């Protein structure tokens, strides 16, 4: 988030720089032209200074939240991350994450991709297959953060979203649902139950994905999943989608046992095996020949 927040703060300070002269000029409108020009020049340089100051302050305030390459802590994280990477990932991704024949380059994939791949246990890849499966993560959260810091230090990229419960509760579920049905259901199925793609690839069930992983998956597009960038699904909408996925996972089924979530196929199975089965049992019972 740092990159976008930093640019936001830059934007707000430049807006300030543009906004203040207007105020000043209105206040001095009745003064003589030369004086006003002189004053305006002086005031605009003050504004510029203030703006720069504000940017600096905001930078130092915001920066520790994420990519704090400047602070000793962050440096430590990067160093640890590099060490972990060299141990567990470099065989495939290259010593400097530049990529190899075994795995793609990770420069510029961002912390989001690392967090997604490592927290879903996909990385480190155990063995080449049609597609990496979700597994229990091999690394602790701190270790994942360290590798994230390392990869982020290499070439930036989408950041870890770090959603809170409050973010999700505030999100617009209906909007999330519409976006989910329009963008995700064609692969993951309307209830997020998952479905196969071609040749052994598949869109996995979303029953285990955390909200962070949902946003990370959208931003980084793992394997055959397309990238949904901020241009397509903005920040707020992405949170709404994550909230909707959480709703699909947690919401109780109002109609009783939710049999498989796929609709007609498990329903047909239940109707034939349990429904018709029970009624044939009744036939046997009623139709049993009694020995008098």
């Amino acid at each position, binding site marked *: 988030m740092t990159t976008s927040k930093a640019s936001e703060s830059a934007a707000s300070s430049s807006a300030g720089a543009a906004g203040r002269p207007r105020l000043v000029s209105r206040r001095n409108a009745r003064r003589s032209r030369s004086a006003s020009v002189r004053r305006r020049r002086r005031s605009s340089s003050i504004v510029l200074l203030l703006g720069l100051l504000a940017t600096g302050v905001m930078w130092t305030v915001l920066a520790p939240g994420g990519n704090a390459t400047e602070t000793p802590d962050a440096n430590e994280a990067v160093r640890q991350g590099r060490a972990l990477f060299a141990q567990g990932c470099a065989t495939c991704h290259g010593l400097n994450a530049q990529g190899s024949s075994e795995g793609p380059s990770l420069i510029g994939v961002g912390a989001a991709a690392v967090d997604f791949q490592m927290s879903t246990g996909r990385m480190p890849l155990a063995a080449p297959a*049609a597609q990496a499966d979700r597994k229990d993560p091999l690394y602790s959260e701190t270790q994942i953060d360290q590798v994230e810091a390392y990869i982020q230090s290499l070439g930036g990229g989408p950041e870890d979203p770090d959603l809170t419960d409050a973010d999700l509760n505030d999100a617009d*579920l*209906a909007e*999330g*649902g*519409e976006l989910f*049905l*329009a963008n995700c*259901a*064609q692969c993951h*199925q*309307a*209830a997020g*139950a998952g*479905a*196969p793609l*071609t*040749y*052994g690839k*598949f*869109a996995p069930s979303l029953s285990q994905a955390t909200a962070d992983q949902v946003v990370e998956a959208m931003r980084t597009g793992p394997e055959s999943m397309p990238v949904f960038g901020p241009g397509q699904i903005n920040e707020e909408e992405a949170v709404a989608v994550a909230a*909707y996925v959480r*709703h*699909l996972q947690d*919401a109780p*089924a*109002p*109609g*009783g*046992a*939710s*049999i498989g*979530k*796929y*609709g*007609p*196929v498990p*329903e*047909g*199975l*239940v*109707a*034939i095996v*349990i*429904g*018709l089965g*029970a*009624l*044939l049992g*009744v*036939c*046997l*019972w*009623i*139709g*049993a*020949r*009694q*020995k*008098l």
Partner: protein
Amino acid sequence: MTTASAPVPKFQKRPTPARKVNRAIDDRFGTQGAIRRNFNKVFPDHWSFLIGEIALYSFMILLLTGIYLTLFFDPSNVEIIYNGSYVPLKGVEMSRAYASTLDISFDTRAGLVFRQIHHWAALVFVASIIAHMMRVFFTGAFRKPREVNWLIGIVLLMLALVEGFAGYSLPDDLLSGTGLRIAASIAQSIPVIGTWTSFLVFNGEFPGENFIPRLYVVHILLVPGILLALIGAHLGILWHQKHTDFPGPGKTEHNVVGHRVFPVFAVKSGGFFMLTFAVLALLGGLAQINPIWTFGPYDPAKVSSASQPDWYIGFLDGSTRLMPPWEFRGLGHTIPAVLWPTAVLPGVLFTLAALYPFLEAKFTGDKASHNLLQRPREAPTRTAIGAMSLSFYLVLFISGGNDIIAHTFSISLNAMTWAGRIGLIVVPPIAYVVTKRLCISLNERDAEIAHHGIETGIIRQLANGEFVEDHRPKPPPVSDYPQVPTDRIPLPAGAADGAHGKGLAHRAGKAVGGFFTEETEKPAGDAPVGGGSKH
């Protein structure tokens, strides 16, 4: 004292009100005779004859629950903004049909459970029709004079599929819309008249204007009306022709042995209706079905993976999935691949099924009337044809859910598709050969028992060194009706079952055994006592 005492007033029972009403009606319409005749009808009892009743009762439950739903459903394409109590759809634009289905599910008393019972009943209805049809087929009940009932049955089956599909399409959710869109493209694929047909059905280009009201009329009036009339005809013919029965003690081509309609059969049937309702209500109350709120309102731009039709249309979905994308061009027309698996295939299948009684009569030369059924093994070729058709259907049916099977069992979808294509060609002939062999060897075993008695497992060595097995003579015949002279012979399994309990499982086992118990017919003239009804 007078000698002539007044005669003692004779006590006379006052007729009950019911009796009075009955007499009043009889005086005017002469109904008593007909009631007596019909109440005295005899219905044979074999468990497999009750399968048709499952279809009948689930149809009645469909009508009852359906009437409740019509009170709240709003068959309209008009778009509105949803503002009901299902939060994740609040503020979403949808048709009134979809919104009212949500309202039935969330804001109507008992709406959801009625919806669910209705849907489960529909699935079980079609399943029981097919089970019933299999019973009729494998026992040869369709033979002369019952071909007309077989034909009516085929029409009933087709109408049941149409009715179910119409119902599935009504709520206007994402699955409904996807299904209808496929239906529209099937209609369009018909050469020459396709586009015209599709426009006629949908009232314009798909999704059409005001299509839901049309569909609604089809679903609640047209098809159920025809179904009701045809079921009436089906049962009327059955009543008139009388039910078939398996050969057995005292049973001939010219009588029916069993229970009178009143009271035994009527009580059993009433109980059966209750139990059918109970099973469907349990399903409707405990298992969620068609959660339209997760699929969302229909929007032509959206589609969910793993979109399936209800199971009874699944075989057509399967045939579409297996069909290679072969397009035929020529004579100024394009015939898309979808035509063959979805229009031509079911056409051929239903035509063959409808013609089967006539084809069989032609090829076997058997033009006689039959009131006694055959056990499946007694007609090996028919049974084998049935098994072959069933396996063909099953391959299509399984392929209809191949994506979900592939996903659930981590198989490649492409592998599933190819397995289906090859299976469709290879499995039916295997089923034919295996079934026919099985029937023939079962017949041989029966003949063996009839001639040599039952194997005892006791091996004796004769003085000359030869080994022989002891055979026990057939046990004495048993009868369901002690009044009826009998020569039914229980098979070894039946004879040895003194060890089993007398529980439900035991009785069920015995009942299934009815299909497989060797029964020989006594020469006609053995008039059944008790429940016999002469033609």
